[in-house]
């Protein structure tokens, strides 16, 4: 039995009927107004609901509603987070309905999808929500039956008193139980007793998705709603000079054309307020097509800015951000990166005496890797609904992190936070892009100006050319082997535009497994904006490092898995340094599992194999990728994947996400690239920006999980970074050529 204090997040567990019934939280719900589907249609709705806490209400007939606190962008939290609540509530999953929770930082902590943290950081809170409700249900039953609480048991929505053979459903005692105060401490289930967590449950919105129900931000529609679009500078380094509104004002359906600043001049931005183009032109009209036509016709003049700077509050640190002027090009970026990567950088970690060790080494291997800027390209382009009235504002749309933007919006509208309601819709993808919600503020500013509800829509071209990209990176790795081919020295120097990939990762493997280690970094300023992209920084480092380790293993004449395991053995038994931020046992565990499941070492004719492993975002991932050459082109035959993310909440959905991360990684390794010429993003739609397609995906993927009872960690990001290395290593085996610069298409190789 695990007893856990309910003090943390206690407000979530107090009875919340006042909050749940009041004002803004339920002030608009047209998305829910669609016909009930799936379970809601199949279940008989109760006559009355009884609120237990911010997560749970139970009807008199035993139907349970569980609210999902975090926004859904395809990672499956809308199913898995309620599963965790249902587990410790001991609910019957067939009787559970899931609702999106309102955004409310008083009731919920961390309503944020990002960093693969939803399950990890939600775990205890979600379990407590279920357990506290179960506790008061049992308590009410004990009172009703006049028996001791200890003799009461539950199972799948039913309460039992075994010795007197009494039983009843949760619904029968819900009204009584909901009035009881939550306990000071609650009993959580042991993992061995889990009945829901660890079993595969279908996506709770599956039926709505396959029948085309309005779930997404772009589907929001409200009486009197206008459509808005923005026109932004066509190049980084440009700003608005003037525009000729007369050129489009008289076009059919057009209501208004004006320029606006997303933030006020005196506003101090936060870290996620990334605002690529401070001033935009808005076009507002009756329908999407009419606004699109006006957008094409609008005549705008742009001019270069010299330099701008702004104050930022980066998690409490006040910093001045300098944005250089100039029109940047990818060719110059590459040249400047090479230049800086050849010089010493800022030392992040140093163990032993790397300089001396490299001099003494019997063999030294040095290789340089690079990767380009990437656009997120969520299938649902940026958009937001906003209805700003004189005294309140309602906004709804796709965003990963409402708490990052609420104060920004409040400051911009000059409206107190409590008068602003942010509704989280299902997102058509996120991948980090929707942690930055400038488009929400833009929609609200436009609505305020025109005095009407507005849906702001980005075109695909707007979405792809608006910045907030994955940065471009370069890294040089150097390894020294002694006369026995043992790794004695390791050196990584990495940087990027406009950030280094290494800052938070210098203490990762192989640090800790080698006596002489050096990590250093550099960066180059740019006016091209960047942001989180599925496993930020790791998504470059893993591919470079794991490709490099493959070459070092080869130079040492060792099997690449065995070579890594020997290093991890050192990290387990006699680690170098004290700040190694990985668990060498778990790291080795995924390599051992992938070695077993892939039948590593069994050669198959015509199949080349590459291995890669990485630790990031608290979870461990290893892949073995099998490639075949068909008609002179590589085709991924199979990927065997081993993951350690602790307890797996929803195994089939978790496997789905790992499969997706693998496909995503293969696609980006071969095709992903944004380039610039004179500040202009050279790709603005899928004609030039190549995305992996059905015929380029692996023929099969097998996902295996390390079985343990460790509290769960995230999975959206960890399987993604190492796939780049597995691709590069299999390609080498298949073609005899090492690939150092992503995308590999640029090196003349494409998928079959």
């Amino acid at each position, binding site marked *: 039995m695990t007893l856990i204090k309910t003090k943390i997040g206690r407000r979530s567990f107090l009875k919340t009927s006042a909050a749940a019934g009041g004002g803004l939280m339920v002030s608009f719900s047209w998305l829910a107004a669609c016909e009930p589907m799936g379970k809601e249609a199949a279940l008989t709705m109760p006559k009355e609901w009884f609120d237990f806490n911010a997560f749970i209400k139970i009807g008199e007939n035993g139907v349970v509603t569980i609210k999902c606190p975090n926004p859904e962008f395809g990672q499956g939290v809308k199913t898995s987070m309620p599963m965790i609540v249902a587990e410790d509530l001991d609910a019957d999953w067939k009787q559970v309905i899931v609702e999106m929770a309102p955004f409310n930082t008083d009731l919920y902590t961390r309503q944020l999808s990002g960093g693969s943290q939803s399950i990890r950081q939600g775990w205890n809170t979600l379990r407590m929500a279920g357990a506290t409700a179960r506790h008061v249900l049992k308590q009410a039953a004990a009172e009703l039956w006049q028996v001791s609480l200890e003799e009461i048991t539950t199972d799948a929505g039913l309460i039992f008193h075994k010795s007197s053979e009494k039983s009843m459903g949760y619904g029968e005692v819900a009204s009584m139980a909901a009035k009881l105060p939550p306990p000071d401490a609650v009993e959580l289930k042991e993992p061995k007793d889990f009945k829901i967590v660890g079993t595969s449950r279908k996506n709770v919105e599956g039926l709505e998705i396959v029948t085309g129900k309005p779930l997404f931000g772009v589907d929001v529609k409200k009486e009197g709603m206008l459509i808005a679009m923005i026109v932004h500078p066509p190049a980084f380094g440009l700003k608005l000079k003037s525009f000729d509104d007369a050129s489009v004002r008289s076009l059919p359906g057009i209501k208004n054309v004006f320029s606006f600043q997303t933030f006020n001049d005196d506003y101090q931005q936060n870290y996620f307020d990334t605002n690529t183009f401070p001033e935009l032109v808005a076009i507002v009209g009756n329908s999407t097509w009419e606004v699109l036509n006006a957008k094409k016709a609008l005549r705008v003049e742009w001019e270069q800015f010299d330099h701008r700077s702004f104050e930022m509050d980066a998690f409490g640190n006040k910093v001045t951000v300098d944005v250089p002027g100039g029109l940047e090009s990818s060719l110059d970026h590459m040249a400047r990166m090479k230049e800086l990567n050849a010089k010493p950088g800022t030392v992040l970690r140093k163990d032993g005496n790397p300089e001396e060790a490299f001099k003494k080494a019997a063999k030294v291997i040095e290789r340089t890797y690079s990767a380009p800027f990437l656009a997120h390209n969520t299938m649902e382009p940026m958009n937001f609904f906003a209805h700003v009235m004189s005294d309140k504002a309602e906004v709804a749309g796709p965003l990963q992190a409402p708490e990052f933007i609420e104060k920004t919006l409040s400051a911009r509208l000059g409206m107190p936070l409590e008068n602003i309601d942010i509704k989280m819709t299902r997102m*058509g993808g996120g991948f980090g892009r929707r942690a930055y919600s400038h488009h929400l503020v833009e929609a609200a500013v436009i609505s305020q100006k025109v005095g009407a509800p507005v849906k702001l829509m980005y075109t695909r071209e707007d979405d792809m050319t608006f910045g907030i990209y994955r940065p471009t990176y370069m890294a040089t790795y150097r390894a020294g082997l002694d006369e026995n081919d043992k790794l004695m020295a390791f050196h990584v120097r990495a940087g990027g535009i406009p950030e280094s990939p290494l800052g938070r990762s210098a203490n990762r493997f192989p640090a800790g497994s080698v006596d002489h280690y050096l990590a250093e970094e550099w960066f180059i300023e740019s006016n091209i904006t960047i942001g989180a992209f599925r496993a930020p920084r790791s998504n470059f480092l893993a591919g470079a490092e794991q490709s490099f380790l493959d070459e070092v293993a080869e130079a040492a004449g060792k099997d690449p898995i065995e070579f890594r395991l020997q290093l991890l053995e050192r990290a387990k038994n006699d680690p170098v340094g004290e700040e190694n931020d990985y668990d060498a046992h778990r790291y080795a565990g995924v390599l051992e599992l992938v070695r077993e499941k892939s039948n590593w070492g069994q050669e198959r004719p015509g199949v080349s194999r590459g291995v890669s492993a990485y630790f990031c975002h608290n979870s461990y991932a290893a892949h073995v990728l099998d490639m075949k050459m068909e008609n002179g082109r590589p085709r991924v035959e199979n990927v065997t994947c081993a993951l350690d993310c602790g307890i797996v909440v929803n195994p089939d959905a978790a496997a789905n996400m790992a499969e997706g991360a693998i496909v995503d990684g293969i696609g980006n390794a071969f095709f992903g690239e944004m380039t610039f010429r004179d500040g202009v993003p050279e790709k603005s739609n899928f004609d030039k920006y190549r995305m992996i397609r059905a015929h380029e995906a692996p023929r099969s993927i097998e996902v295996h999980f390390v079985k343990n009872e460790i509290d769960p960690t995230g999975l959206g990001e960890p399987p993604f970074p190492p796939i780049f290395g597995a691709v590069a290593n299999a390609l080498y085996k298949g073609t005899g050529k090492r690939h150092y610069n992503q995308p590999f298409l640029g090196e003349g190789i494409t998928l079959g």
Partner: protein
Amino acid sequence: MAIFNLNVNAEPRQIDVDPNTPLLWVLRDHLDLPGTKYGCGIALCGSCTIHVNGVATRSCQLPVSAVGNNEVITIEGLSEQGDHPVQKAWLQHDVPQCGYCQAGQIMSAAALLKSSPNPSDEQIESAMSGNICRCGTYLRIKEAIKTAAKL
């Protein structure tokens, strides 16, 4: 502006719009059928796929003036209860992640099965190569199509 009489999901619908308006925006803005999605506007991602006389068609590139009285079916009209074999197979394989592209994927898959009731892997890959899934659910899509072929 001009008046058009359309046959959408087996119902007569009348709208008054610019003749050049792509059917995608007519469906989404004017006919309250938002299941068909905008993804690229240039017929390269497949999110906007519908059926015109049973043929998978990108509605973002189809002007409303070219539709005539041809039979238009959107995801909302593919089945009455969400029980088209492709929809059932999609649920069985728990295909969607974010779900945004899936209406287009399902419409492409349903059209494929109409013309090729037992498609090979190569036929599936070829027929589905016009539909991008950013989440990377291609393997489940392929398995679901094979399941749907048996339903």
